[in-house]
Structure formats: structure tokens, C-alpha cells
């Protein structure tokens, strides 16, 4: 008797699980693609929580994708219908295969138009920050030589040692060679190194100037000064939400939720969020939730 009971229990649980499995497979779920970087993961969770807060939809995150190109492919294949973050500079040269555009406004206008026409996808306006290469120095160095922009380095560059990303050294277009030509000066020595190490190197005084990413959390924690790229040498990498038009037309409330995020995250804010996740052992999901609660989900203050 007991075995019959047990057998029926097993069959019942199989049926239940079978049902929920088929629910999982429904295509209408929102799937947000995210690359493996901390920044992208934080933004993916911010997007997910915003959508779940303002709509009845459930959003699923497809995490740990290798590069922006993989994310693009995933969206073209229909594995995902939103991207947590897309950068203008990456997408101009990557999926759209165009020449780099140095002007930020032109670049975003270009990607918005091209993605709409070629892929029927929306490249939203920027979150409000950009993640590009920038030269940075410690506060002491900046005060000592009175530095605010990259051009200010010209007169003292002969005495300074620089550390840069390995891949930047040999890059065409906006790499080291082009930089020397454009700005017309060179450092006394330039060390190619892994990007993650440059912040510590400049903080400890091993190097005087380094080329890093503008949203890295260590900029704020080490109090580094980011020098302004006054000749607009580096192409813009403005960060924006991204989604399939099909989804946005079908569910306009998702569009409203995402549009609330536009212009809300400054470069400094992104640095802080990255710092929390990279340095303080707080998961991107938790960082995102705390951030949204702090800002009341950008409800416009009143609610």
C-alpha cells in the first residue's frame, strides 16, 4: 500500500514540475543580457528591479556573456530582448562596423538611427555616464604640476612615467601611436600592463600617470584626478539601456520604466556602485536594490 502511495506522490510531483517547466519556457518573459563586468551586472539588476517595480512582468537576466558582440548576437537570435548596457563607442565599431565617431552627440544619433533601421532595436539615451579611457593622476601630482587636462601634461610629460592597458598600446585609431601624434608629446617611459593593476600603481607612486576606465570604483577611493580629454581624442563611450522594439511596442510600460533611468546615473555614482561591488564584497544584485530603494525607484519624489 505504501509503495502505491509513494508512486502516486512521485507521479504527482512530476506533473507539477512539468507544468512549471513549461511556464518557464514561455517566450513572453523579458530577458536582459549582461556581460561579465561588474558594471553591466549592476545595471542589469537595476533594469530588472525597475521593470518588476513598475510593471507586472518578470525579468530574467542572462548573465556572464563574454563581450558586447555576444550580447548583440544573443539579441539578434532572440535569446534576449534587452541589454543591460551598451556603449556608443563599442557599438559603432562593433555590431555596426563603422568608423569611430569622435563627437558624442553624433555618435549616439548614429547608433540610434542605425539600430532602428537595421535591427529594429532601440538604443536609449544615455544613463548619464560614460565609461571611456582617461588619463588619471594622484591629487598630489595634479596640484604639483597644476594639471586639469591632458594638454597640461605636454610640458611635464618628459619627467613622467605612464602605465597603460596592454591592448591600448597596439590599437589602431585611438591607440598609443595615434595619441602621441594627436597631442604631440610622449612620456619618458610608457609601461603596458594589465588594466586592473594601473590604479594601484599610480596610487602607490610607482607611476605618475595611468590610463584607466572612467567608471572604475578605485578612482573615487584613491582620490585620483581624471584629466580632461580636451582634444577629444578618445571616442565617446556613453552608456545606454538597449531593447528590442518588438518588446517595447508590445509592452509600452516596460519602455516607461526604463526611460525613468535615463540621465540618473552620473559617472561618480557609477564609480561608487562599482566600488561597492568590487571592493566591499556586496553582490551587484544587492548594490542595485539598495541604490533603487535609496532613490525610491526614481518615482519623481512624490510617491
Amino acid at each position, binding site marked *: 500500500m505504501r509503495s*502505491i502511495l509513494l*508512486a502516486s506522490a512521485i507521479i504527482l510531483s512530476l506533473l507539477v514540475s512539468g507544468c512549471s517547466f513549461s511556464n518557464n519556457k514561455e517566450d513572453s518573459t523579458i530577458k536582459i543580457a549582461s556581460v561579465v563586468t561588474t558594471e553591466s551586472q549592476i545595471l542589469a539588476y537595476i533594469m530588472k528591479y525597475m521593470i518588476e517595480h513598475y510593471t507586472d512582468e518578470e525579468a530574467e537576466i*542572462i548573465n556572464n556573456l563574454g563581450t558586447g558582440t555576444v550580447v548583440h548576437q544573443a539579441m539578434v537570435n532572440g535569446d534576449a530582448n534587452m541589454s543591460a548596457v551598451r556603449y556608443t563607442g563599442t557599438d559603432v565599431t562593433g555590431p555596426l562596423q563603422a568608423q569611430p565617431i569622435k563627437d558624442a552627440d553624433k555618435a549616439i544619433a548614429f547608433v540610434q538611427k542605425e539600430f532602428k533601421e537595421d535591427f529594429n532595436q532601440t538604443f536609449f539615451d544615455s544613463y548619464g555616464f560614460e565609461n571611456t579611457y582617461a588619463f588619471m593622476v594622484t591629487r598630489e601630482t595634479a596640484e604639483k604640476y597644476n594639471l586639469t587636462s591632458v594638454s597640461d601634461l605636454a610640458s611635464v610629460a618628459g619627467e613622467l612615467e605612464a602605465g597603460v592597458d596592454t591592448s591600448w598600446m597596439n590599437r589602431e585609431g585611438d591607440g598609443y601611436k595615434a595619441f602621441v601624434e594627436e597631442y604631440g608629446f610622449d612620456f619618458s617611459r610608457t609601461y603596458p600592463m594589465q588594466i586592473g593593476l594601473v590604479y594601484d600603481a599610480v596610487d602607490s607612486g610607482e607611476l605618475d600617470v595611468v590610463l584607466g576606465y572612467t567608471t572604475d570604483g578605485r578612482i573615487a577611493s584613491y582620490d585620483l584626478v581624471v584629466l580632461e580629454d580636451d582634444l577629444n581624442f578618445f571616442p565617446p563611450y556613453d552608456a545606454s539601456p538597449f531593447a528590442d522594439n518588438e518588446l517595447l511596442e508590445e509592452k509600452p510600460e516596460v519602455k516607461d520604466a526604463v526611460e525613468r533611468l535615463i540621465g540618473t546615473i552620473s559617472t561618480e555614482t557609477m564609480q561608487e556602485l562599482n566600488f561597492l561591488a568590487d571592493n566591499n564584497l556586496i553582490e551587484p544584485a544587492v548594490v542595485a536594490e539598495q541604490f533603487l530603494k535609496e532613490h525610491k525607484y526614481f518615482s519623481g519624489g512624490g510617491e
Partner: protein
Amino acid sequence: MQDMSQMSATDQFIFYMQENGLYVFNQFLDHFLISIYGVLLAALVGIPIGIFISKYGKASNVVITLANIIQTIPALALMAILMLVLGLGKTTVIVTVFFYSLLPIIKNTYVGITTINKGVTDAGRGMGMTKTQVLYMIELPLSLSVMITGIRIALVIAIGITAIGAFIGAGGLGDIIIRGTNATDRTAIIMAGALPTALMAILSDILLGAIERQLDPVKRQQKKVISPM
């Protein structure tokens, strides 16, 4: 803010768990459900196949060889192949788990039924039982514990495979492990992903092991003999 680099790995781990406990729990649940769905689906398909091949001996070689071949494909490769068809995400991982669970479940069902003492089934038939009655009243109850062993092996394998599934965006505890490997000097994050994964495998092994002993007809018999005393 506390300076994290000054803390020992154990302190970091405790701090991490305090800050992200809920997140880890959610990933744990996701991970477990992906594994369970895959294994249950495999049971749904594998047990009838196992019963079938135990009745028609000729088919058994073909089926078990086929399941064996699937088992030899590395998990990451099988997942990549399935990804081409099914795309990224949870579904692909569930299907991968399904394929890996087939062999232990089919084989154990087959072995469980074929190793039953012939005398018992003959006795059943002698009492006038139909074939279906022999299957439901003799063969299945007697082989149930061996079948559970198959599910137990499958589930432990499945939990390991699901961890790899994070690479194709399925989530689960693998997400935390990957994040740990990308962060510099973050032993605590890797531990926070790896320890619950191991714990899940051990617990499900113990749990199913207990169920298996409960259902083992030989051991159950001994209990009955002992308990009146």
C-alpha cells in the same frame, strides 16, 4: 567603510554572507530547481525506457550504449551544442541535465528489474497475476530502491553541471563562482559560491540515501522483524 583587504578570508566570507545572504539563497534555490527539473524530466522519460528494455532484452544494448555515449561528452561541450539549438539561458541547462541524468536512471531501472529473484515473479504469475499486475505489485516495488539510487546519482551530477550553466547565462550559484574568479583576490566570493553548491550535493545525497534505505525491501524486512522486540 571598512577596509576589506585587511580582513581574513573567513571574516570576508562571514561579512559577504551577512550582506548578500538573500541573494545567495535565491541563487541556491534557482540552482536547485534547475537541477531538479532536469532530473525529474529524465526520470519521467528514463524510467519507462528502463522498464521497456528490461522486458525486451534486445533493445537494452542499443539504449544503454546510446546513453553511455551521451555520458562521455564533456558537459561544457554538450551545453555548447545544445546552445546552438536552444539558445542561452535556463532551458538549455535543464536539457543538458536531462541528457546526463538519462544513463543512471535508465540503467538503474533496468538493473533493478532484471535482478529481481525470478522465483518471486514466477510466484506472482502462478497466483494468476496479469503482466501489468506483476509489474506494479512485484517488480516496481522491489526495484524502487535501486531506481532511487539512479536518481540520487543523477541529481548529484546535475548539481555540478548546473554550476557550469552559469557560463551560458542560466544563473544559479555558478554566477557567484564566476564573479569570484574575475575579481582580484576574492577568495570569499568563490567560497560563497562553492560551499553552498557542495552542501547542496551532499544534502541531496544524504536525503535520497535515506529514502533509498527506507524503500529497500531487504532492510525494511529486517526492521519489521526487529521492531516488535
